[in-house]
């Protein structure tokens, strides 16, 4: 195991940021931590980077304990914090050279590792980092995190606020890095990126909802998810669908509505109602849930459980 998180708890004053977080990452894996802002992702990443000590539980990187053996941990990890953390008043080249020096290496020594990434920003190497666009900043930050050829790369929300094109390019790079044998843990609030990971952990309010590979995650649960499309746009149908007896949840999902039924038996009843709406362009079909669907399902189950508990009190 490259990375072991063993029942981690972490609180800040009265707020419990992490509750019993427990998972392992295999050598060479591309592991995704998926969850919204405030779920505890950054806290977890700082623990992995030896910057915070868990209140209880243990975290080890390649066998080194992040608390007691933080010096060794800091040699083998490459860390990219959630906020762009390079020197805005230094140029692209100067930033890279500085981080190389900090890790006691040179740009040349590991150039082959960052070559593909760095060549994209090399035309701007004299430009100050503060004047780069969002996508280029991410590439530079990734180059800096890789310059000492770390064995574990931990990237905290590298694609937040980055446009869809740059995000796609960034994930292509992560795949390449993975081929170099570097274990990578990456967090993101974008559910669609989860599908690009070998395995993912879903996190919300400091607790893990699930840890699995994306396809297994999609297959889990009963097949109760349906999609509704219409040539006239689906928003108008949202309230009506929610009123239906058999409908448990219904949400906008791109140009579709994703509807979770209460039981498989409700399908026929819903179809009948849909027919009565006399919209020939309506299309109702059973679908395989995406990570986002799963995540929403888990969130709702949790909030349902919460409200049941409140009612019980």
């Amino acid at each position, binding site marked *: 195991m490259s990375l072991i998180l063993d029942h981690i708890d972490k609180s800040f004053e009265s707020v419990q940021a992490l509750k019993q977080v427990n998972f392992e990452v295999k050598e060479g894996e591309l592991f995704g931590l998926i*969850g*919204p*802002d405030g*779920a505890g992702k950054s806290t977890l990443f700082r623990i992995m980077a030896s910057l915070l000590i868990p209140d209880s539980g243990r975290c080890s990187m390649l066998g080194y304990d992040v608390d007691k053996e933080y010096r060794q941990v800091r040699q083998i990890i490459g860390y990219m914090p959630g906020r762009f953390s390079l020197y805005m008043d230094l140029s692209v080249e100067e930033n890279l050279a500085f981080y190389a020096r900090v890790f006691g290496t040179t740009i040349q020594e590991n150039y082959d590792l960052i070559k593909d990434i760095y060549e994209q920003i090399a035309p701007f190497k004299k430009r100050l980092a503060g004047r780069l*666009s969002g996508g280029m900043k991410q590439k530079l930050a990734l180059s800096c995190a890789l310059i000492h050829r770390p064995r574990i790369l931990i990237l905290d929300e590298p694609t937040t*606020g980055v446009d*869809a094109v740059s995000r*796609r390019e960034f994930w292509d790079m992560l795949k390449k890095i993975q081929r170099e044998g570097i274990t990578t843990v990456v967090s993101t609030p974008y559910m669609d990126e989860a599908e690009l990971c070998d395995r993912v952990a879903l996190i919300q309010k400091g607790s893990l909802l699930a840890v699995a590979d994306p396809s297994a995650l999609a297959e889990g649960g009963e097949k109760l998810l349906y999609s509704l499309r219409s040539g006239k746009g689906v928003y108008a149908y949202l309230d009506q669908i929610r009123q239906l007896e058999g409908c448990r949840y219904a949400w906008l999902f791109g*140009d579709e509505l994703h509807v979770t039924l209460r039981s498989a038996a409700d399908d026929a009843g819903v179809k009948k109602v849909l027919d009565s709406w006399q919209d020939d362009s309506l299309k109702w079909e059973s679908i395989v849930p995406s990570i986002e669907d799963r995540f929403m399902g888990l*969130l709702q189950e949790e909030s349902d459980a919460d409200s049941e508990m409140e009612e019980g009190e």
Partner: protein
Amino acid sequence: MTGTLEHIIEVRDMVKKFGSFVANDRLTFHVEKGEIFGFLGANGAGKTTAMRILCGLSYPSSGEIMVAGHNVYHEREKIKRKIGYMSQKFSLYDDLTVSENIRLYAGIYGLGRKEINTREAQLLERLGLTHIKNRLIREIPLGWKQKLAFSVAIFHKPAIVFLDEPTGGVDPITRRQFWEMIHDATLEGITVFVTTHYMDEAEYCDRVSIMVEGRIEALDTPAGLKQSYESRNMNEVFLKLART
């Protein structure tokens, strides 16, 4: 040129230069009253620059621009009274309570005390935040904060509300609830001008423009765009257009 009622934003040949750099290159488009207008583009494509001009925060280099029937060159104050603005980066004051934030913004737009009282109560009721109205903003979850920020931005019933990446980092359910709020706002006649990096959200817009390197490269309904670019979803459309 006068802004017609149907075109709440009318932009013709808008150019904005910073030195020799052209951030907005002859933008021409309009936004219809009551629609949700998606304003997409890669980082650095010039979205923010254009949005700042439309909000009356900076002057264009040239072009004819009317917002809510007012000229952006010399009626900026009038424009500001008729618009609402919310962004992910700055929305509410962290060290004020929920209630104080609402009252602060209402006060800025000159609403009377009585009106503020009743509408504040309505708003809190609708958002289900009444029980935490005396909590500091920094203590409430991001999802609630963003919903509240949006409500505050339309509290004074503006003609247009500008939303700059309003749902960044928000969980998928809250994100959808947020969009339902946006739809509700249009039912009250508010026009919505929104930027986002979530491509599924582009589908929720009535019309979408996509900026590439300072120009508007495409503008149509989501369905129209998917057809023209032979794509299954907006993400593919965006990648085809913005990938150079």
